[in-house]
């Protein structure tokens, strides 16, 4: 193929394309100002700006067409972008004709002059659309929403950025681990929209089929796989993938891909079916963790400042969990005189209290009534207090409670029954309580993932304790 003049000129498209965008939008705003105040000194500028804009739009259209000849783009998006771009060029020339000085006008266009601002507006709208599809072609369809915060994404039902797997051993290697990596980092150029180098990675068949330079994945042979070679080329190498300027694939992800290729690039195997070398194990484990749920804090409104002030004046510590967040830890470490009555102050900031440390204070079951009204509470310390069974029945509304410290309280088996209804509870500490093995086993039957610690650990005396060498 005669590549030199066409493709070379085509590659200038990304440069040229921004000129009409800037100039035509400029023309639109100048005309808008002129529209408000007729005969302003800005009026003559509109035509000139439009002329340059139109000329650059033509240039951009031509170079864009030449670039498209190189191929590798999603044809549907490409044709939309192409025709929108050409329409922009044509309407901009037309609008320029209408904005020229009246004396230069060919008579036929004169009646249309009334509508010239309308034409200009239509042209600007077309420009916006053409630009959007251009962006989709180069950056992929998810480019913008990918950068949204995780909460917003979840709200809109988009899939999370970070790959988190509930139980990694049960996960399917290709579908749950390898495919999401390729989707995130490769598919914008090698997928349904664009097939650079004739390579698409969005399905396993397409991946195994390979591209222009042949097979990219040789099952069982990592070093012979072009995919692996391209991923591990030194930075700055022209053949390295993803190319310069794009987010690179992390070294852990490369190791996972290499591992998958090494075990034969299976499409239907679960992690537990495959041999897991020692260096892969922690990476697999890390997929399970992701960022822990309780660690990613949502943006919530700040707590009532007056109530916080009052709590602090009492000697309580009120500390935000993270410097830009409004979730609070409240600790009575310096205020052992804390009583049930003081709970009133806490309910005023109820939505913000995530962690509450009331160990070694004078609270009783009455305080638990109020604690039960803290809907967001995740960690609760009431160790060494007079809290008992009745208090535990008040915690039903604490649906997010994960940690509960009841060391040295009056809790018995009866109270434990109330805890079966706490869905999020993960850890409970019952050292020095009057609970019995029967009560505990009933609780752990009701909530099998709950870790119960009753303590009372002892270390038997062994000979090594006393032998002096």
């Amino acid at each position, binding site marked *: 193929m005669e590549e030199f003049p066409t493709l070379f000129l085509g590659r200038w498209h990304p440069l040229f394309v921004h000129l009409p965008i800037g100039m035509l939008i400029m023309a639109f705003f100048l005309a808008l100002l002129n529209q408000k105040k007729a005969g302003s000194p800005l009026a003559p500028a509109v035509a000139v700006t439009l002329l340059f804009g139109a000329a650059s739009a033509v240039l951009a259209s031509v170079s864009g067409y030449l670039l498209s000849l190189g191929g590798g783009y999603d044809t549907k998006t490409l044709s939309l972008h192409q025709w929108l771009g050409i329409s922009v060029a044509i309407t901009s020339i037309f609008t320029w004709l209408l904005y020229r000085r009246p004396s230069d006008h060919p008579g036929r266009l004169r009646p249309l002059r009334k509508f010239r601002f309308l034409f200009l507006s239509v042209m600007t709208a077309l420009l916006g659309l053409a630009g959007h599809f251009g962006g989709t072609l180069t950056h992929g369809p998810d480019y913008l929403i990918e950068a949204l915060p995780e909460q917003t994404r979840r709200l809109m039902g988009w899939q999370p950025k970070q790959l988190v797997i509930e139980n990694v051993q049960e996960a399917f290697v290709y579908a749950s681990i390898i495919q999401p990596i390729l989707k995130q980092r490769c598919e914008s150029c090698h997928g349904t929209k664009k097939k650079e180098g004739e390579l698409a990675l969005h399905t396993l068949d397409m991946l195994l089929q390979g591209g222009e330079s042949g097979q990219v994945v040789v099952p069982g042979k990592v070093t012979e796989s072009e995919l692996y070679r391209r991923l591990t080329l030194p930075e700055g190498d022209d053949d390295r993938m993803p190319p310069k300027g794009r987010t690179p694939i992390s070294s*852990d992800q490369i190791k996972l891909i290499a591992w998958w290729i090494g075990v034969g690039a299976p499409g239907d195997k679960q992690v537990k079916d495959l041999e897991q070398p*020692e*260096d892969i194990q*922690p*990476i697999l*484990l*890390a997929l399970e*963790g992701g960022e*822990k749920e*309780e*660690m*990613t*804090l949502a943006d919530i409104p*700040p*707590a009532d*400042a007056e109530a*916080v*002030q009052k709590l*602090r004046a009492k000697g309580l*510590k*009120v*500390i*935000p*969990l*993270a*410097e*830009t*967040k*409004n*979730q*609070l830890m409240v*600790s009575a*470490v*310096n205020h052992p005189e804390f009583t049930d009555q003081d709970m009133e102050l806490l309910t005023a900031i109820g939505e913000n209290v995530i962690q509450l440390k009331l160990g070694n204070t004078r609270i009783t079951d009455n305080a638990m009534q109020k604690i039960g009204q803290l809907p967001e509470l995740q960690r609760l*310390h009431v*160790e060494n207090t007079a809290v008992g069974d009745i208090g535990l029945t008040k915690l039903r509304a604490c649906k997010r409670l994960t*940690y509960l*410290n009841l*060391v040295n309280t009056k809790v018995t088996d009866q109270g434990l029954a109330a805890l079966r209804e706490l869905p999020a509870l993960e*850890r409970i*500490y019952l*050292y020095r309580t009057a609970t019995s093995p029967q009560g505990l086993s009933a609780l752990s039957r009701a909530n099998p993932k709950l870790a119960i*610690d*009753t*303590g*009372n*650990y*002892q*270390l038997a005396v*062994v000979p*090594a*304790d006393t*032998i*002096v*060498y």
Partner: protein
Amino acid sequence: MEKLLKEAREAELKAITRRHFLTECVAGVGSIALVSMLGGCFSSHSGVRKGGDLLMDALNPLAPRSPHFAARAKSVIYLHMAGAPSQLELFDYKPELHKLHNQLCPQSLLAGKKFAFIRGVPKMLGPQAAFRQYGESGAWLSDHLPHFSKVVDEVSFLKAVHTDQFNHGPAQLFMHTGHARLGRPSIGSWVTYGLGTENSNLPGFVVLTSGGKTPDAGKSVWGSGFLPSVYQGVQCRSHGDPVLYISDPDGMSRDLKRKAIDAINTVNREEYETYKDPEILARIAQYEMAYNMQVAVPEVMDIQNEPEYIHELYGTQAGKESFANNCLLARKLVEQGVRFVQLFDWGWDSHGTGPDTALDLGFRNKCREIDRPMTALLLDLKQRGLLDETLVVWGGEFGRTPMQENRDNKDMPFAGRDHHPDAYTIWMAGGGIRKGVTWGETDEIGFSAVSGRTAVHDIHATMLHLLGFDHEKFTYEFQGRPFRLTDVEGHLIEAII
């Protein structure tokens, strides 16, 4: 909140008179000149990290503050074994080394290496302990730590840690300040600078040493370096006054002390009303803290009231200055909201020069001294629901060679090993650390790392991460540039978090 701040600002503006403004200006211009003359030794920072919007009390340098993101660990207990215990007799099981026992070390291992004491060609020294696997995790452990074998499933082992220092002083400094030379803040100071102290009656950073012996690197290992000195570790002792000069002199009653402090604070407050200098507020807070500490510190440092079964668990004896007592104290301090408790034990420098430093004699005595207390510490933290939020770190400043030491190229009378910076073991537990993971592997004789090589900066980065800090953003401006604990290095050890 907004309203309060506005009011405060207005009051402040009213209080600044023209005369004060002029004095400030003169002093200000003068100090600018001074600062440039001194090459920026004093930064313009007030030494207080910015916290969340809700943080009041920003004028008190020890007020509790929030980390960058929600933390998994609230406190740290760091058990440092000064002298560097041998990983080959404790955690890193090398059966191959048995077979090579007493053979001459191959030249390939010696080429290009520098040792502290080994000269010429040393002989290999087989493991001086029997090993077994324990727990569900199957962690290898020597029979020198029979109690610790009960808790291996709570712990993550880093088996291929390396440092770049092979002498105790610099290596200890590196381990605790991230730099082998003097002048940097210790990790405990960084943490206190970042988080303040939760309990306003106790310091945020407490240091306990076994038998009151200071490590080779001196007190700089808990110094505050270029951070304000309020963040340095407070050394507490387990007999006599827990903090030096904490009790009042004869004839000074507590009431009189209160009156004196009240009088001083009244004058200081008046001074503040006139000049609005935040340094005055800091001073008031310090007086109050010192007064409160006089009651709180002796109380928390007293282990006599602990029940007998706790003493049995730890093997503690009230009134002694032992590692066991310090472990129990560490638990009590963390329980009271102290952020960072640093323990130093000593006598781990097993060169084999005498019975005390022989791997089959003195070393085993050291193992006995720490085995029960450190196991008890983990169990006690666990049963109180504290291990969940308390990060426990155990380690020395470097490891020891697979070769028998041959000081001055002569045979040694006892089994001993030289300093070895290339591969050693550190364990971590609690505070968000995975349970039962072994990360990193050394070659078949334990000489160098073959996988999972971990740098000291990686450990620091991981510790800060668990405390809620991004180690790359946690900086302090000094001499014209921001400083980090991890300098320009450090990667999170993902395998164990």
